[in-house]
Every structure is written in C-alpha cells, then in structure tokens.
C-alpha cells in the first residue's frame, strides 16, 4: 500500500470552534418553540388515558364543548389514519381510536382560550370504556394472548417484530470452544430527559396552508406524517424547526401531540400552542427499550473469538416506533469492533401496555454492548489474559467485511486501545488497587449514519444543502438538518467557510423551514456530520469553483492556477497576486446575479441481500475504548466514578470542542443509565414520571473525563470525519461495570446498578465465601 502521507491541515476544521449560536443561547436570546407567540393563539391540552388497556365504547363531549372559552374538542375519530416513523409499521395514532393502549395514551385534545379553561374542559369529557386485559410482561406477550394490543402482532401474540439470523456454524463453534461465557443482562427502560419539553405551535391560515413549528429532530418525518394523517399535501404544509433544547432520539419520531396540535389548528382556524408537562414527556417516552438479553460468547484457548449466540427480549410499549430497527440492532451491532465469524441472533420486540419505547442515543447498541463487554471481561479473566490483550487479538481489520456483510472501511480501534491503555496507566495501576477500588475497560462500536434511509423514496439523497450568496457577501445556508444542541449548524458554517476560505461570520445557517430548506433526514443515527458534511462540502466546492473562475478572469490566469486564500483568491503565476473575496463574488454575479449552489449526499450501495441485510449498514463506523476508575463502598454498595479515559475514533474531529462535548455528555448519560435512571413500573403503571424520582446523574457525580481523539481520516467522511454523537455512550457503561467488578468482585447483570443491588451482590459474594483482593 502506498503511504497516504501526512493528513492535510485545515484553517478552521480540526480546531475548537465555538458554537455560532452560542452567544444567543447563553444570553437567552435564542428562539425556541415556546418563545414564539402568535396573535389569537389558543392553548392546546391533551387528555390522557387513565386505563392501561381499554376499548372506548363512547365518549360524551357535550359538557366540555359548552364551557365558555373552549374552542375545540377532538377525539380520535376525526383523524384516525395511523402513522409511525418507519413506513412499514404505522400503528400510532394522534388521538386514540377505539382503544386506549397505555396509561398516558392520548384520548382527547382540547383547544381553549387559556390553560385553566382547557383543563376544565378535559375534566368534563366523559368516556364509557370496557377494560381489557392488561399486558405488561413481554415474557407472556411472546405467546398468543387474549386481547393482543395490536392486530398486527405475530400469530395473535404481542410480538411486534421477530428477527432470526444465523451466519457460519455457531453450534459447531461452541462445541469446539475452549472457553465460553454467558451474560444474561436485564435493563430497565430509560428515557431521554431532554431539557426542553415537547412543544408545538400550529397555525392554519386562510390561504389554505398549515404551519407547524415544533421541537423536532427530524422536520421531514414530521412533515410527512402531518400530510398523511391530516390528508393535506405536503406542499400545503410548512414545518419550521427553531432552536431545540436536546433530543437524544426523543424528538425523532413524528409524535402524536404534534399531529393533535395541528388538528386543533385546523379545527379552530387559530394558532394553537401545545406545551407538554414533564409528566407528559415521560408518557410520550419513545426512549430506550427495557430489555433482557442473553449473550453467549465462544473463544479458543488463546482468546480468539469464535462465535456469538445472542437472544434479546425487547419491551416495546404500546407502539412500534423505531422498534423494527431496534430489534435488528440489538443483534447486528455485535458485529464490531471485533471480528467474529459465527453469529446467531434471535430477537423479539413485544408490545406492552406501557409508554412506547423508541430510539435513544446509541439506539439498539447500548444494552447489547454492555453484555458483550462484560462478557469479554469475564472471558479474559477465565483465560487469564489482560482484557486489553483480548481486545487487541480480536480487533476488526480496516477495509474488511464482517460475516453478515457489513463493510468496514476505516477503523482506529487499535489506536484507541493503545492510547487509553497508556493514558490510564492501566498496567501499572490495575495490580495496585485495593479492595473497593477498581479499574475497568469497555469498548464501543457504532454506526456513522444509517445507510438505509427511512424514506418512501429511498433513492433521493439523504442530505441536500443549498447555498446562496448575494452582493453583501453573506452566505446563506439552507438544509433541513436539525441542530438540536449538538452543533451541526456550527459545523455546517465551518465547512462552507473552510472550502470558500472566508471568515465564519460570513456564513449564516438558516432556520429549518420546509418551504426553503432542502431535505436532510435530520438528527438521528449519528448521520449529520457524515452526510450533511459531505453535502455541504459539495455545495461549497461548487460555489468555490464559480468564484475561482471569476477570480481567474480578474487575475488573468487559468482557474487551475487559482488558490483559495483567506478571504481572497490567489495565484502565484506569473507573480504573487490576489483578488479579495468580494471582488471575485461581484465579478461572478455579473451575468446571473446572486449565486446559488447545491450539494447532496447519498451513501453508497452496501450490505448483503438476505432479509434485514441493510440493518446496521453504514458508510462508516465509530470505535471506542474507555477505561474507568471507580470506588465502591463495600458496605453500602454506593459507587463513585472517579475518572473516565475516553479514547474515541471519530475519524478526524472537525470541531474538537463539539466532539469533546458529545463525549462528556455521552458519558454523563451512560452513567445515568448505569447508576440510577430507570422507568420504574408496577404492572402497566409508570411509578416515577418526574425528574425527582427518575435519577439522572447530577453534576456532583460526574467524574473527570480525559478525551483522547486518535482517529485517522475516514476515506469517505467529510474531511475524514465520522460520527461522535452516539458511539461515545456505549463504552461508558461496561467500562464502569468492569471497574466495579475489579473493586469488589461483583458482576452487575441488572441495570441500573443501584446501591441496594450492589450491596446485595457483595453480600452474596461473601455468603458464597468468594474472597476478593484478600477480603472475604
């Protein structure tokens, strides 16, 4: 292979670029949906089902409608068309139709002049319902049941999706394996808990158009769902996305309140604002699935991994949401960062009468990764080799193909392992830690953008970016990519500025507005940097080429001799000369006026041809190796995470500030799931729909984080970049769990690892007379 030479250096990219919208956000001037006010705006409120599962026989709305100040009362019969984020599983409704499926399901919507009036109207609605059998145990739901939650469940059961995959000879591998380990993990459901609650403002205007402004991660999916359910062509609907205060996957489905709000706007002819309470947000959920998995790993005597045999029982709640993808991901995301040539997976996602689960940061990869990485820690101990050495021995090679035909291009996984081993002083520290103190390794692998677009027209580009530049020299950037706080607007501006050689302040990223923004599929599956980045680069390069031609005329040279300088175009032949950016721009505008340029990205064809082969394919993958230090109080089971070293391969980091922020935020979120966060249920009832009893990690618990960005350029990523939004989460949980094991000799198979569970584990270890680090 020819050595690629040193990677190119860039003027902006690769540095630490403060967010372009930062000054507005930190001064409170950034506009979020709830900051907007429209004349004559009504308050929309939702009535939620108090029944876990019930057939709605009739509803009496008369008393509610008679209350002065109530403008509209809606039930599900008006807009019964089901929808859902995946085109193949439309089973959600804006307002329940004939049946309520969980405590919190929306059964009616009201628009009124103020909140108190709306609440009075909700209280005046009378339902006549027939209670149905309540389903809250997915283990029961895999078999045929009375009153299944949806008619589409497999064979009269509550199974929404079943995946069976088998590659190689798994049974043969296990039969000949020198070592096998098995991890049976149990994971509570967790939710996104973004800061900005769900909120939508909808307005139907006399020109026959509907404008919906919403806190969404995927304006395009919302646009499509509104059109389908409301029966209005997409060109008569305008979707606007202002600033969004966090999403983490919880704003990526089109959500029922968004459609109910739009329906109320159509009904009343007035603007309607619907701001959800935190409790409403918990019921809307679409968070990480409660899961039981069973991961068996086979290895030879040297620690070469031979096979995975994986089962997963995934609790979906009342609807499908992203569930079909979830069901695949809980198996197929095992295919990295290690090479394993025999792989079997049986996954089932089961409906229950609970708030729907969906996509959450590191969707489908987190719980699976936890069980694998804990299993590898056990395996290393069993074989008697260092956990690092076990991983090094099995690392996927760059430019390889996995047994299920994932295309692996760049991987800097070995560099991650090497960097984190050195930075954490693993080899020196590990043997020295006393009882109660531990160090652990956990690794990660995640998609950098789903190759398979969730789209009715899968051949259109996944991202398009438009640029417009006029006399003033300001460059307007349009794209439906959704900045939800992760910094994609800043990256978009930086890429354009980098290519054109201009200062960042010239570039103005426009608010997402479906009337003017070309389609980008939004913020999910860690696709934005990779896909939008490539589209933006192409658009900027096309604009640059136009400017370079104009500059060449002014400089009396050929375009090939023109270089992009800082705010100018330069040539070195015949002698050092340059023209300012604005001069070149004005020259280029002489024939057609304002310049425009468009760029687009579509990921290449990849993956096998078997059923489900596209699930998990991505144009690139991120890799991670984390080391965590943790202390455990052996008497109380309380855990203190002392430090996390995070070595991450996102290819070339384009904005180090944003990447570090994503990694720190991911660690915070991962530690939350590991140590406290849990949607606690009694039967179908959510016991803790509030932030006091839903235990997000506090800043006081946040450990020091040392970020090590060691990725090499990805061949297809924009400027060599890959994702850094989700992959950084998955390694966190097993790294700390393995540190806990090192501290007190207890394996944590049930999340969250609350102090009572760990204390019980330590007590059990003692009862079984298994001493640890010399302590009985």
């Amino acid at each position: 292979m020819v050595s690629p030479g040193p990677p190119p250096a860039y003027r902006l990219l690769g540095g630490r670029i403060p967010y372009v919208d930062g000054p507005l956000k930190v001064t409170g001037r950034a506009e979020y949906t709830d900051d907007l006010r429209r004349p004559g705006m009504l308050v929309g409120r939702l009535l939620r089902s108090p029944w876990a599962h019930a057939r709605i026989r009739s509803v009496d709305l008369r008393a509610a409608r008679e209350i002065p100040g109530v403008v509209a009362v809606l039930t599900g019969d008006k807009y019964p068309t089901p929808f859902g984020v995946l085109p193949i599983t439309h089973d959600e409704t804006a307002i329940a139709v004939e049946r309520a499926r969980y405590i919190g399901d929306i059964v009616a919507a009201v628009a009124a002049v103020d909140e108190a009036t709306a609440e009075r109207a909700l209280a005046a609605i009378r339902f006549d319902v027939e209670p149905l059998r309540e389903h809250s145990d997915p283990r029961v739901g895999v078999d045929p049941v009375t009153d299944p939650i949806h008619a589409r469940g497999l064979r009269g059961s509550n199974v929404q999706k079943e995946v069976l995959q088998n590659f190689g000879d798994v049974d043969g591998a296990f039969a000949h394996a020198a070592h096998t380990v098995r991890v049976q993990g149990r994971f509570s459901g967790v939710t996104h808990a973004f800061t900005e609650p769900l909120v939508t403002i909808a307005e139907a205007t006399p020109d026959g158009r509907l404008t919906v402004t919403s806190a969404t991660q995927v304006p395009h999916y919302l646009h499509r769902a509104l059109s389908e359910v409301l029966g209005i062509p997409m060109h008569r609907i305008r979707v606007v996305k202002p600033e969004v205060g966090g999403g983490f996957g919880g704003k990526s489905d089109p959500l029922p309140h968004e459609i109910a709000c739009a329906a109320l706007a159509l009904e009343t002819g007035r603007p309607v604002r619907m701001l959800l309470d935190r409790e409403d947000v918990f019921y809307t959920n679409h968070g990480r699935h409660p899961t039981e998995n069973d991961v068996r790993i086979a290895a030879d005597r040297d620690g070469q991994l031979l096979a995975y045999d994986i089962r997963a029982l995934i609790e979906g709640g009342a609807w499908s949401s992203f569930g079909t993808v979830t069901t695949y991901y809980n198996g197929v995301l095992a295919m990295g960062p290690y090479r394993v040539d025999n792989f079997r997976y049986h996954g089932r996602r089961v409906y229950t009468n609970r708030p729907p689960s969906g996509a959450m940061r590191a969707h489908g990869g987190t719980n699976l990764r936890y069980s694998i990485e804990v299993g590898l820690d056990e395996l290393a101990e069993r074989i008697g080799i260092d956990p690092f050495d076990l991983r090094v021995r099995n690392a996927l090679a760059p430019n390889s193909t996995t047994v299920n035909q994932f295309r692996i291009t760049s991987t800097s996984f070995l560099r991650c392992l090497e960097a984190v081993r050195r930075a954490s002083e693993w080899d020196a520290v590990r043997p020295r830690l006393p009882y109660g103190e531990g160090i652990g390794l956990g690794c990660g692998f995640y998609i950098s953008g789903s190759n398979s677009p969730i789209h009715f027209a899968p051949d259109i580009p996944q991202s398009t970016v438009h640029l417009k530049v006029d006399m003033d020299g300001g460059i307007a950037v349009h794209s439906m990519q959704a900045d939800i706080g992760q910094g994609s607007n800043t990256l978009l501006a930086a890429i354009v500025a980098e290519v054109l050689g201009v200062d960042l302040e010239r570039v103005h990223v426009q608010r997402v507005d479906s009337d003017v923004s070309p389609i980008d599929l939004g913020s999910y599956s860690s696709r934005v940097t990779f896909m939008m980045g490539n589209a933006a680069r192409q658009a900027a390069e096309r604009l640059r080429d136009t400017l370079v031609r104009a500059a060449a005329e002014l400089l009396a040279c050929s375009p090939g001799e023109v270089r992009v300088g800082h705010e100018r175009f330069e040539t070195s032949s015949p002698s050092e000369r340059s023209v300012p950016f604005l001069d070149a721009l004005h020259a280029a505008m002489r024939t057609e006026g304002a310049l425009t340029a468009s760029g687009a990205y579509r990921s290449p064809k990849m993956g096998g041809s078997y059923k489900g082969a596209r699930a998990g394919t991505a144009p690139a993958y991120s890799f991670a190796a984390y080391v965590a230090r943790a202390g455990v109080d052996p008497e109380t089971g309380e855990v203190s995470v002392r430090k996390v070293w995070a070595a991450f391969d996102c290819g070339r980091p384009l904005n180090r500030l944003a990447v570090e922020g994503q990694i720190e935020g991911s660690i915070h979120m991962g530690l939350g799931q590991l140590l406290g966060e849990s949607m606690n249920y009694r039967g179908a009832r959510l016991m803790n729909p509030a932030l006091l009893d839903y235990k997000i990690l506090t800043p006081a618990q946040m450990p020091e984080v040392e970020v090590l960005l060691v990725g090499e350029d990805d061949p297809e990523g924009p400027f060599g970049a890959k994702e850094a939004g989700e992959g950084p989460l998955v390694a966190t949980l097993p790294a700390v769990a393995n540190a806990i094991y090192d501290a007190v000799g207890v394996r944590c198979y049930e999340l969250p690892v609350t102090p009572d569970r760990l204390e019980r584990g330590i007590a059990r270890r003692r009862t079984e007379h298994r001493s640890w680090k010399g302590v009985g």
Partner: protein
Amino acid sequence: MHLDPFELHRPTTVEEAHRLYAERPAGADYLAGGTDLLPNYKMHLNLRPTLISLDRIPELARRDGARVGAMVRLGDLERDADFVGRYPGVARALREIATPLVRASATLGGNLLLETRCFFFNQSEFWRASLGYCLKADGDRCHVVPQKERCYATFSGDLAPALAVLDAEVELAGPGGRRTIPLLDLYDRAGDGIRRTHLRPGEILTSVLLPPAARERSATYSKLRVRPSFDFPELGVAVAARIVDGRATELRIALGGIETCPRRFDELTTPLEGAPLDGPRRRELAAAVQAAVRPVHNTFLPPDYRRRMVGVYVRRALTEVVGATAVP
C-alpha cells in the same frame, strides 16, 4: 402543570397571621419558602383556597445565636459562619438538603414541617386519579400497606434529626399564646400519619432554640440517597455526644427519612451514659437501632436495604463522633 389560583396574604405580624387564619374557615396554609408546598399544590395535594405567607414577619427571620427564626432561609443559615461554627452537625445536614437553588428559598421551619412523602402521594392529579386516591389525599385507602386507618408516608426533612440530637426546642405561637416544647414533641408519632404534628389550629412555628449544652457536643449527620444532590433522604442519621476522657455522655441518635416521624433512640442510648463506646458496643448499638425501625416501601430504595443501612450509617456516625477519642 399549572398552579390553581389561590388567595395570598402577606401579614407583617404573627398576630395578623393568626387573625387571617381564623377568618378563613374554608382553610388556609401558612406559606414559608414554598419549595415543598407549591409543588404539592401543583399536584393538587390537599389544596386550600388561601395561603398566608410568613415572609414579611420580621420576628420570624431573626437570627440571634442560639435562637433561629423559622423563616431563616437555609442558604443564609449555611453561610452563617457563626452558626456553622457552633453547630457543625446541623451545618452538615443543611448542606445535604436539596440543591443550592432550593436552599435559597427553603426555610428552617419549612424543613421541620415538611410534608411527608410517598411515591403514591407525590404524584400528579392525573396519576393519583388513575390509580385511585390514597388516604393522605382525597382517598380512603393506603396503597403501601393496604388498610384504611394509617398513612405510612415518610418524614423527609434533614434538619429535624440533626437538631434533635442537640436537644433543640421549638417555639410555637398560637392564637391562644406561645409555648416552647422539645423539637421531637412537635411530631405525633402515635397518630394516624396524616396528622403528623401536635401543632394546634393556626399555630405558627416561630423559632428554633438550641440549648447551651448543644455547643459542647460533637455531632454529625449523614444521609443515604441515590444522588448526592436533589434527593430527599432515604435515611438520615444524626448522632451527637459529649466526649469526656474518651467516654460519651449525652449520647443521642436520631433518624429521619425512615418512618412517618423523625425519631430519637433514648431508650437505647440512655443506658450507655458514660460507658466506653468501643467498637463492639458501637456495632451492638447500631444493630439495636436497626432492629427498632420499620421502613416501608414508599421511597426509591427498597425498605430492607434502607433498614440494613441504618446499622451501617449509625455505626459509622458513632465512630465519627466518639470513635476517635474512645477507649481503645
């Protein structure tokens, strides 16, 4: 979640507050910092049509050495170097309460009179209605221990145990006059759990008094919870003693966050007056306290664990207070 409208009064004297209270037969609540009451009002928990705010009564905000007004904000108290120096155990409890932002509003009296908590009670109107109301608010049964007589909601204040081990007293001002009682006598341990204190109708907690002996004691407070901020106690342990020549006198142990009322264990500590508290004796005492409590499953952590932690936390607190100087 919105707050229903209510009538608000802001009297400037205790007497005026009493008069306002008496003139409102439909019911009124006194409002201190509002950090507990107003969230409960948003959830429609035992709403009353009138709130009488105590924030403009100068007497209640006074700080005077061993006497601290009930309306003193927790944040002010924790920054009071004199108070913190005199009562380090109470200062520790202060710093463990909620968050700095909450402590900026919350008051001393409010923390002592905190509403008891239970995961069937601290829920929205919608949540409670969908399950069926409980006897603490709007209903006639208990979802924790199914029966119709008694509420098992947990006392979740941090300051009561920390003050109780110092033999603090409270001054109460009622329409019929003023009285001063030991802090723990404020709480009605024999009651039905719904009426949790012996406050008489209209009575206002005006101040907390710390006896001179309090300054002679070593004291500590520690708190079990999932997160070291925000969370109410799943268990709060206060221990104080006067250490003379390695022996503990005036030994007090008090717990919060574990039962309906804060509780002191004098029946276990009095017999040990002056005895050397060596390791085995501390362990034995901690086990006896553990055996005496009966937590129920109405907070985040399970009751069997909280009960075991009583043993661990009490033993550690004893070691902290007396261990360093105890007879080896």
